């Protein structure tokens, strides 16, 4: 178990390093929300989900939908590490004609399951996929990462009701609860708390974890598998910008820029 955890932690660190490198110095990118979700994304792709980078459309694969599509780079870094596409592609991020768009595009990248970026829609799309799996009698699981700021979108709550109504127990949501939205603290800007109570009132099973503690992430994902008849929402408490010291808990790095000096520092710390 420990070696598995160690391996995942090592991968998460490398994914964070790739996040920093693919944005590069002097360029803006969504460091904050990508780094807060890095450990969760790592656990999903490298431990929990059944998927095959050689056969991205494998019908029995588990699906991950990144509803907070602005954190695309964490998913790009993970997909490249899995082998969905060569790591060199990461450096084409947002270049004209690049497959790596600012937000995930399912027609351009193998391993991307939906077009997300307009917040609030990914959970509904995930519900539809989960419902499709039920019609087909397929056993795959659908994972959806949503932002805590994203919970302000009304559609999230439409999806919440739909998932409970259709008893989508093959759907697990994960809130990347980093407490910051683009313009500041969620508690001050637009309070989406309390979360556990809201999701339970909407008919979901809830699990609360530290979203940077690999063992807790793994436990949470395992527990979700055991719940029948209702969907599960994992509320993962995270730190925005986790792993890049200057970006940690700093809303300016929701979509921020590292100077050359800060870039070197961040890379150095992540290469340790």
């Amino acid at each position, binding site marked *: 178990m420990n070696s598995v955890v160690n391996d995942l932690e090592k991968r998460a660190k490398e994914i964070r390093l790739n996040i920093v490198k693919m944005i590069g110095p002097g360029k803006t990118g969504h460091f904050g929300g990508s780094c807060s979700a890095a450990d969760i994304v790592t656990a999903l792709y490298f431990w929990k989900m059944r998927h095959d980078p050689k056969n991205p459309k494998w019908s029995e694969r588990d699906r991950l939908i990144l509803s907070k599509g602005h954190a695309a780079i964490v998913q790009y870094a993970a997909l490249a590490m899995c082998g969905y596409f060569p790591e060199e592609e990461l450096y084409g991020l947002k270049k004209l004609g690049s497959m790596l768009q600012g937000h995930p*595009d*399912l*027609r351009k990248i193998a391993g991307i*399951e*939906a*077009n*997300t*970026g*307009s917040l*609030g*829609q*990914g959970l*509904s*799309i*995930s*519900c*539809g*996929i*989960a*419902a*499709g*799996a039920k*019609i*087909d009698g*397929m056993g795959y699981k659908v994972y959806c990462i949503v932002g805590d700021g994203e919970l302000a979108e*009304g*559609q999230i709550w*439409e*999806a919440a*009701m*739909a998932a409970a*109504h*259709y008893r989508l127990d093959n759907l697990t949501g994960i809130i990347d609860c980093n407490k910051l939205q683009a313009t500041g603290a969620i508690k001050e800007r637009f309070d989406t708390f309390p979360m556990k109570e809201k999701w339970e009132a909407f008919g979901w099973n809830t699990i609360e974890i530290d979203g940077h503690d690999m063992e807790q992430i793994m436990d949470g994902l395992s527990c979700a598998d055991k719940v029948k008849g209702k969907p599960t929402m994992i509320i993962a408490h995270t730190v925005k910008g986790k792993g890049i010291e200057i970006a940690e808990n700093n809303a300016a790095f929701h979509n921020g820029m590292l100077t050359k000096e800060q870039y070197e520092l961040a890379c150095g710390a992540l290469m340790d």
Partner: protein
Amino acid sequence: MRMQNQRQVYGQELVELGRENERIVVLEADLGKSTMSCMFQQEFPERYFEMGIAEANMVSFAAGLSLTGKIAFVNSFAVFAAGRPYDQIRQGVCIGRLNVKIIGSSAGLSDFGDGATHQAVEDIAIMRAIPNLTVIAPCDGVEAKKAIRAVAELDGPAYVRISRNDMQDIFPEEQDFEIGKPYVVKEGRDVAVFAAGVMVSMALKAAEQLEAEGISVRVVNVSTLKPFNDKAVVELSRGMKGVVTAEEHSYIGGLASAAAYALRGSSIPMEAVAINDVFGQSAHSADELMIHYGLTDKDIVNKIKSILK
């Protein structure tokens, strides 16, 4: 002349498609007894999703279903189907070219009693502006049935406009329907009328009246508003003294806009029968509204005459 209701025809055809293809799924936002998606529910409850009165979630949910290989038909009134989930259609469905079919029921002024809130006078404009989306406004029950089958077979997103009221049969039963193809309903030499939806029958009536006055009118049913067949519209306008468009929709962004763009390189005189840039309102009948907003055979006659003057 047989009258048919597009909603009824749609509901029946959806059931037929459901029998032939188990990938067909249907979503509804609590208007199933009006859109007639209820017919599908009765036959295939396991492939029918009542989504509650939540159109945004319905469209994205349909996107998800399509990602598992389903052909998802999304139902509501046109105002709600095209208006409320515009962003969901754009972002989650059309960028990825997903197999989601948006059916806008009670379109145009056809929901006469419910007033401005329920009358879609700009749905075609909104839908046409979205890349990758096919937009169709069938002229009668026969064409509605064929168009529904055609969009089910189309690999990609589509918007189909359905009227609430009975419509006179025009489209020949034996005629194949092809997306993107305008149909000449009546030949003529002087003026071409390009019409969509219920206005095709109005154009035919106008043409008959003018025939008696020695004016020969070609009537073209342009049911596919996107992809718009610029080339065919140019061809069918050639040699004419003028062109008139006729639609139960705002002149902004619908057939008038599309035809004007297609004919931008030509100097042919053009007029439009369409709703001005205004909302609808309640009335006791659809006919009253059509008269009030200038959408009758007489309005088409007048526009044709104004061109020939």
